[in-house]
């Protein structure tokens, strides 16, 4: 046996596969063999884009107002039971990805390895790499027991590349009877409007942390981000404190960003935060405490008060 049938759980946003999904499809294609991609809806609208990144087949699951977890995992299980069984299933480390892989893991009685940044297939063995302790240490873990192997990957672990492949064939899969597990229903969808570039795609990110002192001062971060045509971000501490929505969070449990320039204002550099931004090309940190861990990875560190440095910086940039 080799790893020659790979599935990817992909997500669609505004009618197109998300970048994180295309990253996984590209990587799956590079491992060899056929690549089947699971998406919500009938799948035909994204068959060309997925095919161009190496997908050979699209499994479309229309699960309506169900949550993805139970619905997609049950649909995957029904296809596996019918004889089309993958050797490996790759998931994005996202809300939906986590739910689907967890449910599938129990249905198949297989372990699931999460938070990975790399994967190597050799013969019928699959090994994934996971960063721990804020990324200081890399752990390689090999699946034991039988396939399918289930693995989730952090965004930006791979580069999405076009393979020039033809549109993938589409197979519609219906959702089996979910029983009690299908009784959670989405009744309304709310999109939090943001202006400017998206946090995980912006070339410049300005993030604020507890050092700002109070929620009103987050405005400084937003002003600076706007002046630099970047996106504002936040540490977990101020998201937990309710200063900004969760969608602003950079870190282990938030978004992974790799901009050209990352400015950390009033952020000490907890492991939780650093793992989400240490891949940035250039890091500027402003913090009162000269012992703050963030200075250990900053290209330019300013030991100072964000309330003094940020207004002057904003003024200087406005004057240009």
């Amino acid at each position, binding site marked *: 046996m080799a790893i020659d049938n790979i599935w990817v759980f992909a*997500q669609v*946003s505004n009618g197109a596969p*998300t970048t994180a999904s295309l990253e996984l499809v590209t990587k799956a294609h590079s491992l060899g063999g056929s690549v089947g991609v699971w998406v919500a809806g009938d799948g035909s609208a994204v068959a060309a884009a997925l095919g161009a990144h190496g997908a050979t087949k699209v499994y479309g699951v229309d699960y309506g107002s169900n*949550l993805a977890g*139970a619905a997609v*995992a049950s649909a995957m299980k029904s296809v596996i039971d019918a004889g089309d069984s993958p050797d490996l299933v790759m998931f994005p480390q996202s*809300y939906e990805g*986590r739910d689907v892989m*967890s449910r599938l*893991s*129990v249905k198949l*009685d*297989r*372990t*699931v390895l*999460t938070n990975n940044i790399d994967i190597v297939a050799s013969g019928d063995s699959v090994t994934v790499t996971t960063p721990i*302790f804020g990324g*200081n*240490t*890399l*752990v*390689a*873990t*090999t*699946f*034991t027991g039988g396939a399918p192997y289930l693995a989730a990957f952090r965004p930006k672990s791979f580069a999405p590349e076009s393979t020039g492949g033809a549109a993938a064939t589409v197979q519609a899969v219906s959702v089996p009877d979910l029983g*009690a*597990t299908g*009784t959670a*229903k*989405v009744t309304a*969808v*709310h*999109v*939090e409007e943001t202006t400017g570039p998206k946090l995980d795609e912006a*070339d410049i990110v300005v993030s604020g942390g507890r050092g700002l002192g109070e929620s009103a001062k987050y405005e400084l971060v937003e002003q600076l981000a706007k002046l*630099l045509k970047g996106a504002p971000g936040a540490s977990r501490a101020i998201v*937990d404190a*309710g200063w900004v929505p*969760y*969608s602003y969070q950079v870190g282990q*449990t938030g978004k992974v960003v790799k901009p050209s*320039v990352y*400015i950390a204002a009033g952020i000490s550099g907890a*492991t*939780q935060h650093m793992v989400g931004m240490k891949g940035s090309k*250039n890091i500027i940190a402003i913090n009162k405490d*000269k012992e703050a861990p963030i*200075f*250990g*990875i900053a290209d*330019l*560190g*300013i*030991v100072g*008060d964000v309330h*003094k*440095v940020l207004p002057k*910086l904003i003024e*200087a940039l406005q004057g240009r």
Partner: protein
Amino acid sequence: MNIIVCVKQIPDPANPGALDGNNALKRDGKLILDESDSYGVEMALQLVDAAGGGEVSLVSMAPNSETAGLRTALAMGAAKAVLVSDPALQGSDALTTAKILAAAVQRLGGADLIIAATESSDGYTGTVPEQMAEVLGLPSVTFAKKVSIDGGVLKADRQTEAGYDEVTCPLPALISVTAGVVEPRYPSFKGIMAAKSKPVDEVKASDLGVTPVGWDGAGQKITSVTQAEARAAGEVIEDDGEAFGKIVAFLEGLKVI
């Protein structure tokens, strides 16, 4: 309204983590209640209050019969706990952990609602709550940031990449809650004293009928541990009132302004 909260006792995150000889996270020192779980405990206490009766129970898995973190949650107001403590559990993967915790839930006779954090602060695999829901055959709402119960139906705002979804779900159900969803109370002196005599039912994996567990049950094997390439620190300067100029020059050098 009876609610069970899954809590984890973890090494103090203020201390740097380390691996033991088996490449498992070292957990031999004092363990504390994972802060992420304090939100679930608080939410459970509030929901039971709002329902006008019932109690909050805890389930946990930990080595060495450790109860320090459980006592914190009991001091907040939980009534009792089931602690699964068994050397055989060392090395267990998330799936085994979910099976163990699900069996502990059943040992308590189930509940109207089971609450967990979205992930632990030490291992952060992030799959255990949804795996437990599947083992127990329950509906689930993960990443809930606002929760209420009305007439046996749970309503929650569930975090999404773009914003949030409103979700309804009949009970019994399982939810995972994000940090910051409620403000956890500090245990009172009276609560701390009372917690000392609250029942903690300590059991082994074999008592729960879950096999195999530990390294044997894990569908994974760690093959290497290496140090990542360190990122070098650059220039660090003290602000003398003009440090903003350094930032401007740095940005100019990168041609981003």
